[in-house]
């Protein structure tokens, strides 16, 4: 039996053995993912240029953030995920400490106490850190225990998830809280939680939703849900955004009005056209074809991410990669769904495209981890 035959017989574990490492692997860069991300970022900048009406300073800041984020991604890719796993509990505790600190010392912005000022660091939202740390922590927790997880482990994982979620929800930042909870829950789902449990949990949630509506949701949240079903109910208030964004998308047609020719956004009809509603600008100017191009890019990134998750060498990496990429999908789906009027309006930016650096930075950290998972220790088994 030649060494080649041995490797072949090792099945999936040995499939990379003996293969010559490419230059990308030395650099710990996943080439397909990087290309897809760069195309998406470039396309996003084009749309943003139109949405900001060629605002040079805004574009400059965005490009700077993108470059910093790309650098951060490459840095993260160099780190072996096992180091992250080892640090995960401490990062979780640190993140929690910051979230508690926000409650007492945080600065207020946009009506909520979300920001924190630390010496030597720019002002940031600790909840952004949690977006990365929580899946890391939950994945680490499960990877040390046999999966499918036992009920006790699921319970503790839920506690890990609920603590930061609750702290962020009271800031209040319900959107981010839910997305962070989702990123943790994805780990539990991927870890093989019994479907029966999942469906019974969903059932309970749906049954308790009237109580949620009555006791928990604030008026503006209720209005957002009402607006989803009937934007005309308050056309000049909450319905305005959704009517305008649908008009922008619909008037774009198949081929769009052309780059820089979108009137809805350029004439200021579309609020938040540079941030959460930027996809309406894209749809107006590039039409259905532009939207399909965008969705193909997202599918490529998500597909590559799922491939990386599937090909990962250990449970921790699989859970983490899966969580990162599904959370990314949730961002895409919620944003486009909201702007096109099939989901209520929640403040979720369009990943990699919307103006705002923090969101891109956090996402890029996630992609850095994906690249790290894919390029480290291919030959080692746990």
């Amino acid at each position: 039996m030649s060494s080649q035959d041995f490797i072949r017989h090792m099945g999936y574990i040995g499939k990379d053995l003996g293969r010559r490492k490419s230059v990308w692997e030395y650099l710990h860069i996943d080439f397909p993912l990087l290309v897809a991300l760069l195309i998406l970022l470039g396309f996003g900048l084009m749309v943003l240029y139109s949405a900001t009406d060629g605002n040079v300073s805004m574009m400059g800041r965005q490009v700077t953030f993108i470059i910093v984020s790309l650098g951060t991604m490459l840095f993260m890719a160099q780190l072996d995920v096992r180091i992250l796993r080892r640090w995960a509990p401490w990062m979780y505790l640190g993140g929690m400490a910051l979230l508690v600190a926000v409650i007492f010392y945080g600065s207020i912005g946009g009506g909520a106490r979300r920001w924190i000022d630390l010496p030597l660091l720019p002002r940031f939202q600790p909840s952004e850190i949690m977006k990365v740390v929580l899946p890391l922590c939950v994945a680490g927790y499960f990877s040390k225990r046999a999966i499918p997880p036992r009920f006790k482990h699921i319970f503790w994982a839920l506690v890990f998830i609920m603590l930061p979620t609750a702290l962020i929800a009271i800031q209040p930042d319900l959107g981010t809280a839910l997305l962070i909870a989702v990123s943790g829950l994805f780990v539990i789902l991927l870890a093989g939680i019994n479907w029966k449990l999942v469906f019974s949990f969903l059932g309970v949630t749906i049954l308790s939703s009237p109580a949620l509506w009555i006791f928990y949701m604030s008026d503006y949240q209720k209005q957002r849900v009402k607006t989803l079903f009937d934007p005309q109910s308050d056309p000049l208030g909450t319905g305005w955004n959704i009517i305008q964004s649908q008009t922008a998308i619909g008037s774009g047609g198949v081929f769009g009005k052309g780059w820089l020719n979108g009137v809805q956004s350029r004439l200021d009809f579309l609020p938040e056209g540079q941030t959460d509603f930027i996809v309406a600008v894209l749809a107006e100017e590039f039409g259905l074809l532009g939207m399909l191009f965008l969705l193909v890019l997202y599918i490529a990134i998500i597909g590559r991410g799922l491939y990386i998750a599937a090909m990962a060498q250990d449970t921790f990496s699989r859970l983490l990669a899966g969580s990162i990429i599904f959370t990314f999908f949730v961002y895409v789906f919620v944003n486009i769904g909201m702007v096109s009027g099939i989901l209520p309006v929640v403040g979720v930016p369009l990943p990699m495209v919307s103006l705002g650096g923090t969101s891109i930075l956090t996402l890029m950290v996630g992609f850095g981890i994906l690249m790290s998972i894919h390029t480290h220790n291919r030959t080692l088994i746990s």
Partner: protein
Amino acid sequence: MAEKITIQDHQLERQIVLSRIIVGGVIAFFLILALIARLFFLQVNQHDYYSTKSDSYRIHVQPIVPTRGLIYDRNGTLLAENVPSFTLTLVREHAGDVEKVVDVIASLISLTEEDREKIGSRLKNRSIPYSSVPVRFNLSEEEIARISVNQFRLPGVSVEAQLVRHYPEGEIFAHSVGYLGSITEDELKAVDPVNYSGTHQIGKQGIERFYEDILHGQVGYQTVEKNARGQIMNVLDRTDPVPGQDIVLNLDSKIQKAAVEALGDYRGAVVAIDPESGGILALVSKPAYDPNLFVEGISRKDYASLNDPVETPLFNRALAKYAPGSTVKPFISLAALNGGYRTPEDTVYDPGYYQLGNHKHYDWTWWSNKTGHGTVDMQRAIYQSCNVYFWDLAMDMGIDQMHDFLFRFGFGRNVSLDLPQASTGTLPSREWKLNTMGESWYPGETINSYVGQGYTEATPLQLATATMLMSNKGKWYRPAVMKKIGTHSSPEFDSTFLPDIEINNPDYWDFIAESMEMVVNRGYGGEYRTYGSAYPYIAAAEPLKYRMAGKSGTAQVIAIPENYDRADEVPEKYREHAWFISFAPVDNPKIALAVFVEHGEAGSSVAGPIARNILDAYLLDEQGELKAEFIFPQISEEDDESELTMPEKESVVGSASEIPESLPEEKVNLVTVNQ
């Protein structure tokens, strides 16, 4: 290392996670397909709908309001102009919390409770979303500065510049030029709504109202691209508006002002007409109001003060009907001469009363000394205003003769060109009474009518018109405020509508004019009863510089009971109305005038001097001499005097001061029934 070692089945774990990843991937894929389906629905199925919607947001057709025509008096003095004014406006959709924004505004500039209420109602009535409503008009520069500095606290608030109507002469022309005000729904129905699509104001009164279509002009349009804030980004297409035409009026601000001044504190009216054109030189009603108050929406307080039940400043007395009193006597005299009922020489003996059946009608002289005028001919009946003469005539001539003749002078109808709101007055006849009251005519009613009482009612405008006809010997011109529109002069007068008044013997015109001239002059003898009734008050103190003709009138407001104690102070509202009609110069008439003084009590002594002041203001130059343009090429001085039987005018000047003594003021004031 105390790390807990768990036994894990890596193959199984891989299978579990992989299956979940595949399930998740499939779900994600279908959700993305759902997004694509939604996008397809919006961008393909509903593309046309949203395209139209997008254009309608973006492209607005905007009216461009034409500039309103200006109004000038006959000398080119501006009576109505358009001045830039700054208005604070608010767009509700951008303001967020309107209450809060209004509070901020109120902290910066003065804002009354009423202003606030009006903002609320304007916002409620506004039909177009994203359109602005006025918050406060007429901002000062300081207020604009304060708003600008605090602009960041005032979302949706802006300062808009627009042209606003302004009446530089204020009250003086209120009742003739009128004013602009906000268009009501009813008014909008009456005009072409397209032409008024950008216009918020319309002529409410006077010339502004009558010539609305000429002054307004034709609206223009522009197609603009707007953003959601309503800011115009781009003008795509423009049709210029046609500005309204300027109007030149016959009014003369100098005489108008003189009339306002001459009326003093009295309520009343003055109408002056140019006998050579029918042009209305003055149209004054007092008290008046400031028309500028209406332009930007009058405050409730101001409006309440304009509705004073006694002062009634909004009421145009110049066009309202009142009993004309003795001012009708010259016209009735002419009717009697023309109809052959009297010759100039016929006389009547006046014992101080006239007996009709069992009822005695007392002349005004009776109340002072229980005597009458004695033997009076027509001329004396006019210049001494003898009622008994006309009561006697009334019985011979009857009501219908008077009606038919006076109708030709414009009584009982409104013949003005551009004052449709003027009353027609009342010119009674048998037919009129039957039609309006269903009753037959009584002789006693003829008695009243012949001295301008009873049913007979006329407006100051009608009396001025009739006086014009008397001055120009029956030549009709239609009384008109407007002189010229733009560069075109007014259309030629259609004389078939108002045929000139022809009488059997044209000398009668001169005879009546002479009688009217005697009203303001000394008579034949030295006794006061032979003076013209108005002479002591008009010409005695200061001789006239021109030949003036006139007739006083004092009209009862209520029937005075026979036992009424005339020595008592009469409450103001029961005091008689005072009139004076006049024209001058007699040999070359340039102005015909009617002065009405509400509850003025005495035509000769109250209304008479007012008339003279107005004539002086119009006819005399700064040195107090007759203006050259009004001097008629004199035939000869001797002719004048012999004709008029006027004893040495100049010599009277010295003794003028004595004359009022022989006619004590209080006596005159009280003895004024149908003077």
